Structure formats: structure tokens, C-alpha cells
């Protein structure tokens, strides 16, 4: 069964731009790519979603190449409060043609002062 792949962890410093890439080779044609953020002792929270090219909101940007087999979450000018686990979420068509929502293993992002 296809799955997503993300780096297990990343470190960065306050004020830097952070890019986290997710691979999703078997993404379904009509499915979106969504990123969630999870702080300790809390449930995941929606950050951004896109289908193709580039999407930007007040907290992040999402870059999706033409083949849609990967996506990159970009966090501009991170702060200590951006320390969290970031999950990449896509819908994947399984062998029996049913859709499954596959969560990546998550990337633990640590921001240092």
C-alpha cells in the first residue's frame, strides 16, 4: 500500500524559513494535499491545503510540482512556537479502488533560539 514519506525530524533557528517535503507517489488524481500541525498534548490542527502549483495563507505556503508526487510546506520566519510535529496528508487509491487517507509519519520540527 502506498504511503507518504517525510523526514523524521528537522532543526532550525528563529527567523529562518523552513521547508518540509513530503513524497506521495501514488496520490489519487482528484485528491488534495493537506498539512497538519500538532503540538504536544493536543490534537492535530489544519495548516494548509492545495491541489497543484502554489497555495499561500497567513501561516504557510505549499508548493506542489506538476506531477504532484511530492509537496513542500514552507514556514516563513519561524519562531519558537512553531516547534511541533507536521503531518502530510493525502488521499491514496488502494488496489481495490477504495480511497484511504494516509497520514505521514510526521516531521518533528524543533526551532532553536
Amino acid at each position, binding site marked *: 500500500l502506498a504511503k507518504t514519506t517525510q523526514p523524521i525530524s528537522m532543526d532550525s533557528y528563529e527567523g529562518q524559513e523552513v521547508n518540509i517535503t513530503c513524497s506521495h507517489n501514488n496520490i489519487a488524481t*482528484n*485528491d*488534495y494535499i493537506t498539512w497538519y500541525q*500538532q503540538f504536544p498534548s493536543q*490534537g492535530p490542527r489544519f495548516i494548509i491545503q492545495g491541489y497543484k502549483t502554489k497555495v499561500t495563507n497567513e501561516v504557510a505556503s505549499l508548493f506542489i510540482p506538476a506531477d504532484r508526487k511530492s509537496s513542500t510546506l514552507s514556514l516563513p520566519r519561524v519562531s519558537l512556537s512553531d516547534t511541533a*510535529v507536521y503531518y502530510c496528508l493525502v*488521499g491514496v487509491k488502494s488496489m481495490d479502488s477504495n480511497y484511504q487517507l494516509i497520514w505521514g*509519519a510526521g516531521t518533528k520540527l524543533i526551532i532553536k533560539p
Partner: protein
Amino acid sequence: DTAVSQTPKYLVTQMGNDKSIKCEQNLGHDTMYWYKQDSKKFLKIMFSYNNKELIINETVPNRFSPKSPDKAHLNLHINSLELGDSAVYFCASSQGSQARGNTIYFGEGSWLTVV
């Protein structure tokens, strides 16, 4: 004004006991879920209900039984608890299928420890 609320937040219980976790959403969503997150932070869907109908039932032991009295509530009952059931259980909801790009709203989680 919690959107998705689940109780209890913490639960410590002995092996063999039966326990329930309750969940309610006030977002007017038609779909609710139970997820399990293990110690390695992997999130796995357990069940999904749409308008009180079970639509996703992943491979979980039949000791786990979800119940949806109405579309705003989805409770999880666990029989004969085992050590391996220790995890964080998240309730969530969305309007429409999660696989179609609809945003999922999660509760704060219920930390279950089986001793």
C-alpha cells in the same frame, strides 16, 4: 466553545476492564472519526461514521466498538482492555469525506493508560 470535545482527557485503568470515551462535535459536521496515536506518534484511523452510519472500519480488535447515537456524537467503548491499548485516542470530525480534501477537526485527545 470547543468544536470537538472528548472525555475523559486522562484515563488510567487495569487490564481486563471495560471503558468508554465520549465525543461530541458542535460544528454541524456529518462525519466523525476515531483515531489512535501510539507512542511513536503514528496516527491511524480506526473508525469513521457519516450521518451515524459506519463507513470506515479499519482492522481493529472487535473489543473496540464505536457507537453514534446521532451525527454530533461518536463514542468509543473498549472491552477487556489490554496493555497494548495504551495510547492517545483522538476524536475528529469533518463536513464530507476526509479523503476529498475536507478539513478534519480534532479533539484534544484522551490519554489511555492500561496497567
